[in-house]
Protein backbone atom coordinates (compact mmCIF):
# COMPACT_ATOMS: atom_id res chain seq x y z
CA UNK A 1 0.00 0.00 0.00
CA UNK A 2 1.26 3.47 -0.83
CA UNK A 3 1.57 6.21 1.78
CA UNK A 4 -1.64 7.91 0.64
CA UNK A 5 -3.55 4.64 0.64
CA UNK A 6 -2.24 3.84 4.08
CA UNK A 7 -3.34 7.19 5.51
CA UNK A 8 -6.75 6.89 3.86
CA UNK A 9 -7.09 3.42 5.38
CA UNK A 10 -6.22 4.66 8.89
CA UNK A 11 -8.66 7.57 8.58
CA UNK A 12 -11.38 5.16 7.52
CA UNK A 13 -10.71 2.88 10.50
CA UNK A 14 -10.74 5.83 12.91
CA UNK A 15 -14.07 7.00 11.45
CA UNK A 16 -15.62 3.56 11.88
CA UNK A 17 -14.46 3.41 15.49
CA UNK A 18 -15.94 6.89 15.98
CA UNK A 19 -19.25 5.63 14.58
CA UNK A 20 -19.15 2.70 17.02
CA UNK A 21 -18.30 4.73 20.12
CA UNK A 22 -19.59 8.25 19.54
CA UNK A 23 -23.33 7.56 20.01
CA UNK A 24 -22.57 5.84 23.31
CA UNK A 25 -20.24 8.58 24.53
CA UNK A 26 -22.54 11.46 23.53
CA UNK A 27 -25.12 10.32 26.08
CA UNK A 28 -22.72 10.89 28.99
CA UNK A 29 -22.32 14.72 28.78
CA UNK A 30 -26.06 15.05 28.07
CA UNK A 31 -26.88 13.33 31.35
CA UNK A 32 -25.06 16.08 33.30
CA UNK A 33 -26.93 18.86 31.52
CA UNK A 34 -28.44 21.72 33.46
CA UNK A 35 -30.86 22.37 30.60
CA UNK A 36 -34.45 21.24 30.42
CA UNK A 37 -34.06 19.58 27.04
CA UNK A 38 -31.51 17.52 25.23
CA UNK A 39 -29.36 20.29 23.82
CA UNK A 40 -25.78 19.87 22.81
CA UNK A 41 -23.44 21.17 24.06
CA UNK A 42 -25.21 21.21 27.45
CA UNK A 43 -25.74 24.76 28.79
CA UNK A 44 -24.14 23.89 32.13
CA UNK A 45 -23.37 21.20 34.66
CA UNK A 46 -26.07 19.75 36.87
CA UNK A 47 -26.93 16.49 38.56
CA UNK A 48 -30.67 17.15 38.27
CA UNK A 49 -31.36 14.15 36.02
CA UNK A 50 -29.57 11.81 38.42
CA UNK A 51 -31.53 13.30 41.33
CA UNK A 52 -34.63 12.72 39.24
CA UNK A 53 -33.67 9.08 38.76
CA UNK A 54 -32.69 8.32 42.34
CA UNK A 55 -35.67 10.07 43.96
CA UNK A 56 -38.43 8.56 41.84
CA UNK A 57 -39.54 5.20 43.13
CA UNK A 58 -40.77 4.24 39.66
CA UNK A 59 -37.12 4.29 38.54
CA UNK A 60 -35.44 2.95 41.68
CA UNK A 61 -37.96 0.11 42.15
CA UNK A 62 -37.30 -1.00 38.59
CA UNK A 63 -33.55 -0.74 39.09
CA UNK A 64 -33.70 -2.90 42.24
CA UNK A 65 -35.91 -5.45 40.51
CA UNK A 66 -33.47 -5.67 37.60
CA UNK A 67 -30.53 -6.10 39.96
CA UNK A 68 -32.28 -8.85 41.94
CA UNK A 69 -33.48 -10.68 38.85
CA UNK A 70 -30.00 -10.32 37.34
CA UNK A 71 -28.30 -11.76 40.43
CA UNK A 72 -30.68 -14.72 40.65
CA UNK A 73 -30.22 -15.39 36.94
CA UNK A 74 -26.45 -15.26 37.43
CA UNK A 75 -26.55 -17.82 40.24
CA UNK A 76 -29.01 -20.12 38.50
CA UNK A 77 -27.31 -20.06 35.11
CA UNK A 78 -23.85 -20.54 36.63
CA UNK A 79 -25.06 -23.52 38.69
CA UNK A 80 -26.75 -25.09 35.66
CA UNK A 81 -24.24 -24.04 33.00
CA UNK A 82 -20.90 -24.91 34.63
CA UNK A 83 -21.53 -28.66 35.10
CA UNK A 84 -23.14 -28.80 31.66
CA UNK A 85 -20.05 -27.23 30.08
CA UNK A 86 -17.82 -29.78 31.86
CA UNK A 87 -20.07 -32.60 30.70
CA UNK A 88 -20.01 -31.35 27.11
CA UNK A 89 -16.25 -30.80 26.95
CA UNK A 90 -15.11 -33.89 28.87
CA UNK A 91 -17.93 -36.32 28.29
CA UNK A 92 -18.91 -38.25 25.22
CA UNK A 93 -22.50 -39.30 24.99
CA UNK A 94 -25.25 -39.96 22.51
CA UNK A 95 -27.04 -36.79 21.49
CA UNK A 96 -24.21 -34.49 22.54
CA UNK A 97 -24.57 -32.37 19.41
CA UNK A 98 -28.29 -32.05 19.98
CA UNK A 99 -27.76 -31.00 23.59
CA UNK A 100 -25.19 -28.46 22.44
CA UNK A 101 -27.64 -27.07 19.87
CA UNK A 102 -30.40 -26.82 22.48
CA UNK A 103 -28.15 -24.93 24.90
CA UNK A 104 -26.86 -22.47 22.29
CA UNK A 105 -30.18 -21.98 20.49
CA UNK A 106 -31.41 -18.99 22.56
CA UNK A 107 -28.59 -16.96 20.99
CA UNK A 108 -29.94 -17.54 17.48
CA UNK A 109 -33.72 -17.97 17.87
CA UNK A 110 -35.26 -14.50 17.37
CA UNK A 111 -36.04 -12.82 20.68
CA UNK A 112 -39.68 -12.26 19.84
CA UNK A 113 -40.27 -16.01 19.41
CA UNK A 114 -38.77 -16.80 22.81
CA UNK A 115 -40.64 -13.90 24.40
CA UNK A 116 -44.10 -14.80 23.11
CA UNK A 117 -43.47 -18.52 23.66
CA UNK A 118 -42.71 -17.93 27.33
CA UNK A 119 -45.64 -15.52 27.57
CA UNK A 120 -47.97 -18.12 26.08
CA UNK A 121 -46.94 -20.89 28.49
CA UNK A 122 -46.16 -18.87 31.63
CA UNK A 123 -49.50 -17.07 31.42
CA UNK A 124 -51.28 -20.38 31.95
CA UNK A 125 -49.17 -21.03 35.08
CA UNK A 126 -50.15 -17.56 36.34
CA UNK A 127 -46.54 -16.42 36.25
CA UNK A 128 -46.92 -13.23 34.19
CA UNK A 129 -46.19 -10.12 36.25
CA UNK A 130 -44.07 -12.05 38.74
CA UNK A 131 -40.29 -11.66 39.03
CA UNK A 132 -39.96 -15.47 39.04
CA UNK A 133 -41.12 -15.52 35.40
CA UNK A 134 -38.32 -13.11 34.48
CA UNK A 135 -35.72 -15.16 36.36
CA UNK A 136 -36.83 -18.39 34.63
CA UNK A 137 -36.91 -16.80 31.17
CA UNK A 138 -33.70 -14.80 31.47
CA UNK A 139 -31.81 -17.86 32.70
CA UNK A 140 -32.53 -19.64 29.41
CA UNK A 141 -31.15 -16.61 27.54
CA UNK A 142 -28.10 -16.22 29.80
CA UNK A 143 -27.00 -19.83 30.14
CA UNK A 144 -25.35 -20.09 26.67
CA UNK A 145 -22.82 -17.44 27.70
CA UNK A 146 -21.92 -19.40 30.85
CA UNK A 147 -21.49 -22.63 28.86
CA UNK A 148 -19.44 -20.89 26.14
CA UNK A 149 -17.07 -19.19 28.58
CA UNK A 150 -16.58 -22.19 30.86
CA UNK A 151 -16.00 -24.52 27.88
CA UNK A 152 -13.41 -22.22 26.37
CA UNK A 153 -11.33 -22.12 29.59
CA UNK A 154 -11.82 -25.85 30.06
CA UNK A 155 -10.31 -26.57 26.64
CA UNK A 156 -7.22 -24.71 27.83
CA UNK A 157 -6.77 -26.77 31.01
CA UNK A 158 -3.81 -29.15 30.89
CA UNK A 159 -5.38 -32.53 31.57
CA UNK A 160 -2.10 -33.95 32.85
CA UNK A 161 -2.64 -31.85 35.99
CA UNK A 162 -5.90 -33.71 36.62
CA UNK A 163 -4.33 -37.09 35.89
CA UNK A 164 -1.51 -36.25 38.27
CA UNK A 165 -3.95 -35.47 41.09
CA UNK A 166 -5.92 -38.65 40.43
CA UNK A 167 -2.86 -40.85 40.28
CA UNK A 168 -1.76 -39.42 43.62
CA UNK A 169 -4.97 -40.75 45.12
CA UNK A 170 -7.31 -37.75 45.00
CA UNK A 171 -10.95 -38.61 44.41
CA UNK A 172 -12.56 -37.25 41.22
CA UNK A 173 -14.48 -34.72 43.32
CA UNK A 174 -11.32 -33.59 45.17
CA UNK A 175 -9.51 -33.34 41.84
CA UNK A 176 -12.28 -31.15 40.51
CA UNK A 177 -12.38 -28.96 43.63
CA UNK A 178 -8.64 -28.52 44.01
CA UNK A 179 -7.30 -28.69 40.47
CA UNK A 180 -9.90 -28.11 37.76
CA UNK A 181 -12.09 -25.54 39.52
CA UNK A 182 -9.29 -23.07 40.31
CA UNK A 183 -8.14 -23.31 36.69
CA UNK A 184 -11.55 -22.66 35.16
CA UNK A 185 -12.58 -20.02 37.71
CA UNK A 186 -11.91 -17.09 35.32
CA UNK A 187 -14.22 -18.69 32.75
CA UNK A 188 -16.93 -19.19 35.36
CA UNK A 189 -16.50 -15.60 36.46
CA UNK A 190 -16.66 -14.23 32.90
CA UNK A 191 -19.73 -16.37 32.20
CA UNK A 192 -21.39 -15.04 35.36
CA UNK A 193 -20.68 -11.45 34.32
CA UNK A 194 -22.17 -12.00 30.85
CA UNK A 195 -25.15 -13.80 32.38
CA UNK A 196 -25.82 -10.82 34.64
CA UNK A 197 -25.51 -8.31 31.79
CA UNK A 198 -27.78 -10.44 29.57
CA UNK A 199 -30.54 -10.39 32.16
CA UNK A 200 -29.96 -6.82 33.30
CA UNK A 201 -30.27 -5.45 29.74
CA UNK A 202 -32.99 -7.78 28.51
CA UNK A 203 -36.12 -6.13 27.14
CA UNK A 204 -38.17 -8.39 24.86
CA UNK A 205 -38.99 -11.10 27.41
CA UNK A 206 -39.65 -8.40 30.01
CA UNK A 207 -41.99 -6.66 27.57
CA UNK A 208 -44.29 -9.69 27.61
CA UNK A 209 -43.67 -11.14 31.08
CA UNK A 210 -43.39 -8.01 33.25
CA UNK A 211 -47.10 -7.26 33.30
CA UNK A 212 -47.63 -4.14 35.39
CA UNK A 213 -46.19 -5.55 38.58
CA UNK A 214 -42.66 -6.68 37.68
CA UNK A 215 -41.38 -3.76 35.62
CA UNK A 216 -37.63 -4.06 35.01
CA UNK A 217 -35.34 -1.13 34.29
CA UNK A 218 -35.18 -1.74 30.49
CA UNK A 219 -38.98 -2.07 30.48
CA UNK A 220 -39.32 1.26 32.32
CA UNK A 221 -36.89 2.87 29.88
CA UNK A 222 -38.87 1.51 26.94
CA UNK A 223 -42.07 3.09 28.25
CA UNK A 224 -40.28 6.36 28.91
CA UNK A 225 -38.59 6.44 25.49
CA UNK A 226 -41.88 6.02 23.71
CA UNK A 227 -43.39 8.78 25.80
CA UNK A 228 -40.63 11.36 25.79
CA UNK A 229 -36.87 11.04 25.41
CA UNK A 230 -36.10 13.29 28.39
CA UNK A 231 -32.60 13.58 29.88
CA UNK A 232 -33.44 11.26 32.80
CA UNK A 233 -32.96 8.54 30.22
CA UNK A 234 -29.50 9.91 29.50
CA UNK A 235 -28.61 9.54 33.16
CA UNK A 236 -30.00 5.98 33.29
CA UNK A 237 -28.09 5.19 30.10
CA UNK A 238 -24.89 6.59 31.57
CA UNK A 239 -25.32 4.45 34.66
CA UNK A 240 -25.92 1.37 32.52
CA UNK A 241 -22.91 2.12 30.30
CA UNK A 242 -20.71 2.53 33.37
CA UNK A 243 -21.93 -0.70 34.97
CA UNK A 244 -21.64 -2.78 31.78
CA UNK A 245 -18.24 -1.39 30.83
CA UNK A 246 -16.68 -1.88 34.25
CA UNK A 247 -18.02 -5.42 34.54
CA UNK A 248 -16.76 -6.24 31.05
CA UNK A 249 -13.33 -4.72 31.52
CA UNK A 250 -13.06 -6.42 34.93
CA UNK A 251 -13.87 -9.82 33.43
CA UNK A 252 -11.44 -9.24 30.57
CA UNK A 253 -8.57 -8.20 32.86
CA UNK A 254 -9.17 -11.21 35.07
CA UNK A 255 -9.14 -13.51 32.05
CA UNK A 256 -5.87 -12.07 30.78
CA UNK A 257 -4.24 -12.24 34.20
CA UNK A 258 -5.15 -15.89 34.63
CA UNK A 259 -3.89 -16.59 31.13
CA UNK A 260 -0.55 -14.98 32.00
CA UNK A 261 -0.33 -16.94 35.24
CA UNK A 262 -1.15 -20.18 33.48
CA UNK A 263 1.40 -19.74 30.71
CA UNK A 264 3.98 -18.57 33.26
CA UNK A 265 3.51 -21.75 35.28
CA UNK A 266 3.77 -24.00 32.28
CA UNK A 267 6.86 -22.17 31.11
CA UNK A 268 8.66 -22.70 34.41
Amino acid at each position, binding site marked *: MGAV*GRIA*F*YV*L*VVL*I*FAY*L*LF*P*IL*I*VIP*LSFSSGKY*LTFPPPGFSLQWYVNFFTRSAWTDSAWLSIWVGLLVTVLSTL*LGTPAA*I*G*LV*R*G*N*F*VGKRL*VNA*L*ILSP*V*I*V*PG*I*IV*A*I*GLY*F*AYASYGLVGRPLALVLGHT*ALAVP*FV*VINVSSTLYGVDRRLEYAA*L*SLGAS*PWATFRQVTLPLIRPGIFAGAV*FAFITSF*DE*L*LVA*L*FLSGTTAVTLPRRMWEQ*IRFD*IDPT*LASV*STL*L*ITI*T*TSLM*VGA*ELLRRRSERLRTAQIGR
Partner: protein
Amino acid sequence: MLSRRSSLGASAARLPSGSLLAAPLVVYLLVFYAYPVLLMLSRSVYEKGWTLQVFAKLLRDVVFWRVMQITGTISLIVTIVCLVLAYPVALFLARCKQSTANLLIILVLIPFWTSILVRTYAWMVLLGRRGIINNLLVDTGLIDHPLTLLNTRLAVCVAMVHVLLPFMVLPIYSTLKSLDWRLIRAAEGLGARPLAVFREVLLPLSLPGISAGCILVFTLAIGFYITPALVGGPGDLMISILIGNQVNILDWPPAAAMAVVLLVVVLIIFAGFTRIMRIEKIFQGQR
Protein backbone atom coordinates in the same frame (compact mmCIF):
# COMPACT_ATOMS: atom_id res chain seq x y z
CA MET B 1 -4.54 -50.45 45.99
CA LEU B 2 -2.94 -50.17 42.63
CA SER B 3 -6.05 -51.44 40.85
CA ARG B 4 -8.24 -48.99 42.75
CA ARG B 5 -6.14 -46.09 41.53
CA SER B 6 -6.20 -47.14 37.95
CA SER B 7 -9.96 -47.61 38.02
CA LEU B 8 -10.25 -44.11 39.47
CA GLY B 9 -8.09 -42.84 36.67
CA ALA B 10 -10.29 -44.52 34.11
CA SER B 11 -13.50 -43.14 35.60
CA ALA B 12 -12.00 -39.67 35.81
CA ALA B 13 -11.01 -39.76 32.18
CA ARG B 14 -14.70 -39.29 31.52
CA LEU B 15 -15.60 -37.50 34.74
CA PRO B 16 -18.77 -38.81 36.45
CA SER B 17 -20.59 -38.91 33.16
CA GLY B 18 -21.02 -36.15 30.65
CA SER B 19 -24.71 -36.67 30.13
CA LEU B 20 -25.36 -36.66 33.88
CA LEU B 21 -23.61 -33.31 34.28
CA ALA B 22 -25.56 -31.75 31.44
CA ALA B 23 -28.87 -33.29 32.49
CA PRO B 24 -30.08 -30.58 34.93
CA LEU B 25 -29.57 -27.84 32.34
CA VAL B 26 -31.18 -29.88 29.58
CA VAL B 27 -34.22 -30.58 31.75
CA TYR B 28 -34.39 -26.92 32.74
CA LEU B 29 -34.25 -25.71 29.13
CA LEU B 30 -36.82 -28.27 27.97
CA VAL B 31 -39.31 -27.32 30.70
CA PHE B 32 -38.90 -23.54 30.85
CA TYR B 33 -37.81 -22.69 27.31
CA ALA B 34 -38.22 -25.32 24.58
CA TYR B 35 -41.61 -26.67 25.66
CA PRO B 36 -43.21 -23.19 26.02
CA VAL B 37 -41.90 -22.11 22.62
CA LEU B 38 -43.01 -25.32 20.88
CA LEU B 39 -46.40 -25.18 22.59
CA MET B 40 -46.88 -21.63 21.28
CA LEU B 41 -45.72 -22.59 17.78
CA SER B 42 -48.16 -25.52 17.77
CA ARG B 43 -51.02 -23.03 17.92
CA SER B 44 -50.37 -22.39 14.23
CA VAL B 45 -51.55 -25.88 13.27
CA TYR B 46 -53.75 -26.89 16.18
CA GLU B 47 -56.95 -25.44 17.50
CA LYS B 48 -59.49 -28.02 18.64
CA GLY B 49 -58.01 -30.25 15.95
CA TRP B 50 -55.23 -30.19 13.37
CA THR B 51 -55.55 -27.61 10.64
CA LEU B 52 -53.51 -25.91 7.94
CA GLN B 53 -56.07 -23.14 7.61
CA VAL B 54 -53.95 -20.60 9.48
CA PHE B 55 -50.98 -21.08 7.17
CA ALA B 56 -53.20 -21.05 4.09
CA LYS B 57 -54.64 -17.73 5.22
CA LEU B 58 -51.23 -16.33 6.14
CA LEU B 59 -49.73 -17.12 2.75
CA ARG B 60 -52.51 -15.16 1.09
CA ASP B 61 -52.05 -12.22 3.45
CA VAL B 62 -50.72 -9.17 1.58
CA VAL B 63 -49.55 -7.41 4.75
CA PHE B 64 -47.50 -10.45 5.78
CA TRP B 65 -45.68 -10.61 2.43
CA ARG B 66 -45.10 -6.86 2.41
CA VAL B 67 -43.59 -7.03 5.92
CA MET B 68 -41.44 -10.03 4.94
CA GLN B 69 -40.17 -8.03 1.99
CA ILE B 70 -39.37 -5.00 4.17
CA THR B 71 -37.65 -7.27 6.70
CA GLY B 72 -35.56 -8.91 3.99
CA THR B 73 -34.61 -5.60 2.38
CA ILE B 74 -33.55 -3.97 5.65
CA SER B 75 -31.60 -7.06 6.72
CA LEU B 76 -29.80 -7.20 3.37
CA ILE B 77 -28.84 -3.51 3.43
CA VAL B 78 -27.65 -3.84 7.04
CA THR B 79 -25.58 -6.93 6.20
CA ILE B 80 -23.87 -5.28 3.23
CA VAL B 81 -23.11 -2.04 5.10
CA CYS B 82 -21.80 -4.05 8.07
CA LEU B 83 -19.49 -5.98 5.77
CA VAL B 84 -18.13 -2.85 4.11
CA LEU B 85 -17.46 -1.20 7.49
CA ALA B 86 -16.26 -4.28 9.36
CA TYR B 87 -13.66 -5.48 6.88
CA PRO B 88 -11.25 -2.53 7.23
CA VAL B 89 -11.57 -2.67 11.02
CA ALA B 90 -10.90 -6.42 11.11
CA LEU B 91 -7.96 -5.99 8.73
CA PHE B 92 -6.53 -3.23 10.88
CA LEU B 93 -6.94 -5.30 14.07
CA ALA B 94 -5.32 -8.33 12.47
CA ARG B 95 -2.31 -6.31 11.29
CA CYS B 96 -1.53 -4.19 14.36
CA LYS B 97 0.43 -5.17 17.46
CA GLN B 98 -1.29 -7.78 19.64
CA SER B 99 -1.43 -5.47 22.67
CA THR B 100 -3.01 -2.68 20.60
CA ALA B 101 -5.43 -5.16 19.05
CA ASN B 102 -6.48 -6.44 22.48
CA LEU B 103 -7.23 -2.90 23.59
CA LEU B 104 -9.15 -2.01 20.43
CA ILE B 105 -11.18 -5.21 20.64
CA ILE B 106 -12.44 -4.05 24.02
CA LEU B 107 -13.60 -0.89 22.21
CA VAL B 108 -15.49 -3.09 19.73
CA LEU B 109 -16.94 -5.19 22.54
CA ILE B 110 -18.15 -2.28 24.68
CA PRO B 111 -20.90 -1.31 22.24
CA PHE B 112 -21.52 -5.05 21.78
CA TRP B 113 -22.40 -5.47 25.44
CA THR B 114 -24.05 -2.08 25.94
CA SER B 115 -27.81 -2.35 26.29
CA ILE B 116 -29.50 -2.26 22.90
CA LEU B 117 -31.99 0.16 24.41
CA VAL B 118 -29.23 2.57 25.40
CA ARG B 119 -27.74 2.44 21.90
CA THR B 120 -31.10 3.01 20.27
CA TYR B 121 -31.86 5.88 22.64
CA ALA B 122 -28.53 7.45 21.68
CA TRP B 123 -29.53 7.34 18.03
CA MET B 124 -32.88 8.92 18.83
CA VAL B 125 -31.05 11.74 20.59
CA LEU B 126 -28.73 12.19 17.62
CA LEU B 127 -31.28 11.90 14.82
CA GLY B 128 -34.37 13.54 16.35
CA ARG B 129 -36.02 16.57 14.81
CA ARG B 130 -34.42 18.72 17.49
CA GLY B 131 -31.61 16.23 17.80
CA ILE B 132 -27.90 16.90 17.85
CA ILE B 133 -27.28 16.38 14.13
CA ASN B 134 -30.16 18.62 13.03
CA ASN B 135 -29.16 21.34 15.50
CA LEU B 136 -25.61 21.22 14.26
CA LEU B 137 -26.67 21.46 10.63
CA VAL B 138 -29.09 24.33 11.26
CA ASP B 139 -26.62 26.23 13.47
CA THR B 140 -23.88 26.03 10.88
CA GLY B 141 -26.34 27.23 8.27
CA LEU B 142 -26.01 24.16 6.08
CA ILE B 143 -29.77 23.68 6.12
CA ASP B 144 -32.69 25.98 6.95
CA HIS B 145 -35.16 23.49 8.33
CA PRO B 146 -34.45 20.37 10.35
CA LEU B 147 -34.37 17.19 8.28
CA THR B 148 -36.59 14.24 9.03
CA LEU B 149 -34.00 11.68 10.07
CA LEU B 150 -35.79 9.76 12.78
CA ASN B 151 -38.54 7.28 11.89
CA THR B 152 -37.03 6.65 8.50
CA ARG B 153 -35.46 3.67 6.78
CA LEU B 154 -32.12 5.46 7.05
CA ALA B 155 -32.41 5.67 10.84
CA VAL B 156 -33.29 1.98 11.08
CA CYS B 157 -30.28 0.99 8.99
CA VAL B 158 -27.82 3.32 10.74
CA ALA B 159 -28.90 2.14 14.20
CA MET B 160 -29.06 -1.54 13.25
CA VAL B 161 -25.62 -1.48 11.64
CA HIS B 162 -24.33 0.11 14.83
CA VAL B 163 -25.77 -2.72 16.92
CA LEU B 164 -24.68 -5.53 14.58
CA LEU B 165 -21.25 -4.34 13.42
CA PRO B 166 -19.32 -6.22 16.16
CA PHE B 167 -20.89 -9.49 14.96
CA MET B 168 -19.28 -8.89 11.58
CA VAL B 169 -15.92 -7.63 12.86
CA LEU B 170 -15.25 -10.59 15.16
CA PRO B 171 -15.55 -13.52 12.71
CA ILE B 172 -13.62 -11.68 9.98
CA TYR B 173 -10.93 -10.72 12.48
CA SER B 174 -10.62 -14.30 13.66
CA THR B 175 -10.18 -15.53 10.06
CA LEU B 176 -7.64 -12.84 9.18
CA LYS B 177 -5.75 -13.50 12.39
CA SER B 178 -5.15 -17.14 11.53
CA LEU B 179 -4.22 -16.37 7.92
CA ASP B 180 -0.81 -17.25 6.52
CA TRP B 181 0.40 -13.72 5.84
CA ARG B 182 3.43 -15.03 3.94
CA LEU B 183 1.05 -15.57 1.03
CA ILE B 184 0.28 -11.85 0.95
CA ARG B 185 3.95 -10.94 1.16
CA ALA B 186 4.71 -13.41 -1.60
CA ALA B 187 2.13 -11.80 -3.86
CA GLU B 188 3.53 -8.37 -3.06
CA GLY B 189 7.07 -9.60 -3.57
CA LEU B 190 6.12 -10.93 -6.97
CA GLY B 191 5.01 -7.46 -7.95
CA ALA B 192 1.22 -7.59 -7.62
CA ARG B 193 -0.42 -4.20 -7.14
CA PRO B 194 -2.17 -3.60 -3.78
CA LEU B 195 -5.61 -3.91 -5.38
CA ALA B 196 -4.65 -7.15 -7.10
CA VAL B 197 -3.23 -8.55 -3.84
CA PHE B 198 -6.51 -7.73 -2.16
CA ARG B 199 -8.72 -9.16 -4.90
CA GLU B 200 -6.72 -12.22 -5.83
CA VAL B 201 -5.24 -13.28 -2.49
CA LEU B 202 -6.59 -11.55 0.62
CA LEU B 203 -10.28 -11.56 -0.26
CA PRO B 204 -10.53 -15.25 -1.22
CA LEU B 205 -8.62 -16.20 1.93
CA SER B 206 -10.95 -14.16 4.15
CA LEU B 207 -14.10 -15.68 2.65
CA PRO B 208 -14.84 -18.00 5.60
CA GLY B 209 -14.92 -15.04 8.00
CA ILE B 210 -16.90 -12.92 5.56
CA SER B 211 -19.57 -15.55 4.99
CA ALA B 212 -19.79 -16.41 8.69
CA GLY B 213 -20.18 -12.71 9.54
CA CYS B 214 -22.79 -12.13 6.83
CA ILE B 215 -24.89 -15.12 7.89
CA LEU B 216 -24.71 -14.13 11.54
CA VAL B 217 -25.63 -10.48 10.91
CA PHE B 218 -28.42 -11.37 8.50
CA THR B 219 -30.04 -13.93 10.83
CA LEU B 220 -29.84 -11.55 13.78
CA ALA B 221 -31.17 -8.66 11.66
CA ILE B 222 -34.34 -10.42 10.49
CA GLY B 223 -35.30 -11.01 14.13
CA PHE B 224 -34.88 -7.37 15.18
CA TYR B 225 -37.65 -5.76 17.20
CA ILE B 226 -36.52 -2.98 19.52
CA THR B 227 -34.52 -0.82 17.13
CA PRO B 228 -36.99 -0.72 14.21
CA ALA B 229 -39.85 -0.23 16.67
CA LEU B 230 -38.19 2.88 18.12
CA VAL B 231 -36.43 4.55 15.19
CA GLY B 232 -38.41 3.18 12.24
CA GLY B 233 -41.39 4.74 10.52
CA PRO B 234 -44.66 3.05 9.55
CA GLY B 235 -42.99 1.78 6.37
CA ASP B 236 -40.33 -0.06 8.33
CA LEU B 237 -42.56 -2.60 10.02
CA MET B 238 -40.44 -5.71 10.52
CA ILE B 239 -41.73 -9.23 11.03
CA SER B 240 -40.95 -9.39 14.77
CA ILE B 241 -43.01 -6.25 15.38
CA LEU B 242 -45.91 -7.68 13.38
CA ILE B 243 -45.78 -10.87 15.46
CA GLY B 244 -45.66 -8.84 18.68
CA ASN B 245 -48.64 -6.72 17.60
CA GLN B 246 -50.65 -9.85 16.82
CA VAL B 247 -49.88 -11.23 20.29
CA ASN B 248 -50.87 -7.97 21.92
CA ILE B 249 -54.39 -8.41 20.57
CA LEU B 250 -54.16 -12.07 21.69
CA ASP B 251 -54.65 -13.36 18.15
CA TRP B 252 -52.39 -16.39 18.68
CA PRO B 253 -52.78 -18.60 15.58
CA PRO B 254 -51.46 -16.08 13.00
CA ALA B 255 -48.75 -14.93 15.43
CA ALA B 256 -47.66 -18.55 15.88
CA ALA B 257 -47.71 -19.18 12.13
CA MET B 258 -45.56 -16.13 11.45
CA ALA B 259 -43.21 -17.24 14.23
CA VAL B 260 -42.90 -20.64 12.53
CA VAL B 261 -42.02 -18.98 9.22
CA LEU B 262 -39.48 -16.66 10.87
CA LEU B 263 -37.90 -19.53 12.80
CA VAL B 264 -37.64 -21.77 9.73
CA VAL B 265 -36.00 -18.98 7.72
CA VAL B 266 -33.53 -18.25 10.54
CA LEU B 267 -32.65 -21.92 11.01
CA ILE B 268 -32.15 -22.56 7.29
CA ILE B 269 -29.83 -19.58 6.89
CA PHE B 270 -28.02 -20.33 10.10
CA ALA B 271 -27.39 -23.93 9.08
CA GLY B 272 -24.90 -22.44 6.62
CA PHE B 273 -23.05 -20.76 9.48
CA THR B 274 -22.44 -23.97 11.41
CA ARG B 275 -20.59 -25.37 8.38
CA ILE B 276 -18.09 -22.52 8.54
CA MET B 277 -17.55 -21.61 12.16
CA ARG B 278 -18.50 -22.61 15.67
CA ILE B 279 -20.88 -20.06 17.16
CA GLU B 280 -18.94 -20.23 20.44
CA LYS B 281 -16.02 -18.52 18.71
CA ILE B 282 -17.94 -15.28 18.41
CA PHE B 283 -18.86 -14.94 22.06
CA GLN B 284 -15.71 -16.14 23.78
CA GLY B 285 -13.13 -13.78 25.18
CA GLN B 286 -11.74 -12.75 21.83
CA ARG B 287 -8.21 -13.25 20.70
